[in-house]
């Protein structure tokens, strides 16, 4: 199988800035901070791959290594079969790095002038520039606003121009660092649709994006890599990652209101059966209780029986599928 991105035992450590005291005490000692430790994964061609992790997890470092902006310390990183250390210029020909920093454009030039400048730097011939600019601007929906100064663009437009710039050299792989950061909900939704529908499904591009947003990762990406403190915690489809938490361990039970002293009775059932109560919510007619059991596969009928015996009328009882957020919290130890 051919991969778009292959990373094998990637390690990156950054030297820490020394304090004056440390310079005097240990002039030759260099403390380092681990940004990535033995990370290995691969991304298939035409895949929408997500990097997920809290701040400082190493997502941006990983993306910048793929974009040849940072050199790895150890390990092998290949993009489109090319080594990022040995063939950086060829790698840059295969990728479009979406620099989402708004300041990465010339604010007093128009969108068109900005793209024209970057098109020349990407070796696009003079004859093709006009056609290529037309194409990418139409694709990101900015053709009408192409001749407005960049400073007058909204955040969403700036983000889309950034994607247009990355598409100029017609790369096979797009690398995006938090593309929906600082966008409003509508712009976020449109951009997500554009990434999935236009870039991945229609054009067959490989997209590797980082995000903090668990909903985005779960709904947009076909596979997710979770990084925490520079280490790879999980790399799989969202559903498989969710299955890392036993499905039956959380049971949700809906009871009809009607008997007195409800809370105490439920507490005593939980103590007796060693259930952990993770949620107790009283509504007008219903009580919703979430129980975490010690067994991986709890017999739901026995729970229903237990609550019925105590006088409750059980209207629903089902294993609750964990959200990616719950899995993520559990994985990173919160």
């Amino acid at each position, binding site marked *: 199988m051919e991969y778009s991105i292959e990373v094998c035992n990637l390690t*990156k450590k*950054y*030297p820490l800035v020394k304090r004056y005291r440390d310079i005097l005490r240990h002039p030759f000692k260099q403390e380092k901070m681990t*940004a990535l430790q033995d990370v290995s994964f691969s991304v298939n061609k035409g895949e929408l791959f997500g990097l997920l992790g809290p701040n400082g997890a190493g997502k941006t*470092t990983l993306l*910048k290594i793929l*974009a*040849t*902006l*940072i*050199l790895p*310390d150890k390990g092998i990183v290949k993009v489109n079969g090319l080594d990022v250390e040995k063939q950086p*210029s060829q790698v*840059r*020909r295969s990728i479009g*790095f979406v*620099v989402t*920093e*708004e*300041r*990465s*454009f*010339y604010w*007093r*030039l128009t969108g068109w*002038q900005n793209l*024209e*400048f*970057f098109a*020349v*730097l*990407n*070796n696009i011939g*003079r004859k093709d520039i006009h056609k290529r600019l037309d194409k990418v601007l139409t694709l990101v929906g900015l053709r009408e606003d192409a001749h407005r*100064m960049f400073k007058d663009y909204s955040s969403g437009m700036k983000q889309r121009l950034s994607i247009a*710039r990355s598409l100029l*050299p017609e790369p096979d792989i797009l690398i995006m660092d938090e593309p929906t950061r600082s966008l409003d909900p509508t712009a976020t939704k449109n951009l997500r649709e554009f990434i999935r529908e236009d870039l991945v499904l229609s054009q067959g591009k490989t997209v590797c994006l980082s995000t903090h947003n668990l909903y985005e990762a779960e709904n947009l990406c076909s596979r997710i890599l979770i990084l925490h403190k520079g280490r790879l915690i999980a790399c799989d489809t969202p559903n498989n990652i969710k299955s890392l938490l036993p499905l039956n361990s959380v049971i949700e039970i809906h009871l009809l209101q009607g008997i007195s002293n409800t809370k105490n009775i439920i507490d005593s059932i939980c103590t007796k059966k060693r259930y952990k109560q993770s949620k107790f919510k009283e509504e007008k007619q219903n009580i919703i209780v979430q129980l975490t059991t010690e067994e991986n596969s709890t017999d739901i009928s026995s729970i229903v029986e237990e609550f019925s015996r105590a006088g409750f009328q059980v209207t629903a009882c089902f294993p609750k599928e964990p959200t990616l957020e719950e899995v993520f919290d559990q994985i990173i130890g919160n």
Partner: protein
Amino acid sequence: MIKAIAFLKRDIQETLSYKLVFFGHLIGIVFPLFTFFFVSKLIDGSNIQSLTPYGNEYFPFVLIGIAFSSYMMLSLHFFSGIIVDAQRTGTLEALFCTQTSLPTILVSASIFYFLEGAINVILYLLIGVIFFGVRFVNPNIVGTLLISILTITCFLSVGIISASFVLVFKKGDPIMWLFSSISGLLGGVMYPVSIMPVWLQKISKFVPLTHSLEGIRKSLLTGASILELITEIKVLVILSIILLPLSFFFFSKAVIKAKKDGTLTHF
């Protein structure tokens, strides 16, 4: 070449978007010249011997000193300025992600500043001639251009070494600080080197600006031939041969170091 034009076009478009830049610039040239013109009124007629080799007049002497030294000092800052500017405006990362090598980016981005500097020199000299009555008798234009090119090569090399410091240490570049201060003090910009104590005159022989200003003044004010400028030309050629490869070596090491430390775009 196409890339160089793209950079030039970008810089012109950006500069033109600021409507008052040119006028501010012009005022910045004219006002100091007035100051030196009045100072020269004070000095002229005092028959200062150290000015004899340059035609006995102070204003043409200082006009050439200011015009050419400002260009040369500017060329010192070209590369580090381009890097710091792109780091601060946030465009450096986007530039590095293109299919253009870093040396090409730097050289292309510096063209606008080269032209701007050359236009400044011409403006200085034109204003001197038109408004202050400076006369250049039989000026050796070829000699002036040759010495200017050699001096800029030396200064650019030092500028590239300085840019290497900026890439790695971000601020506090000792090369730029030392070179500019020593050049300003010992290069003979405002006064002839011959008025300094002998030991300082000896040190000034190691400063490229001393030789370039000496050569340019000789060629513009006394019409010295290439043969008469041979000493200055020799010194500047030797310095260029030493400094240019050294600067490329330092710069390539600095890029690798910044990429390893992950600080290429930091400032």
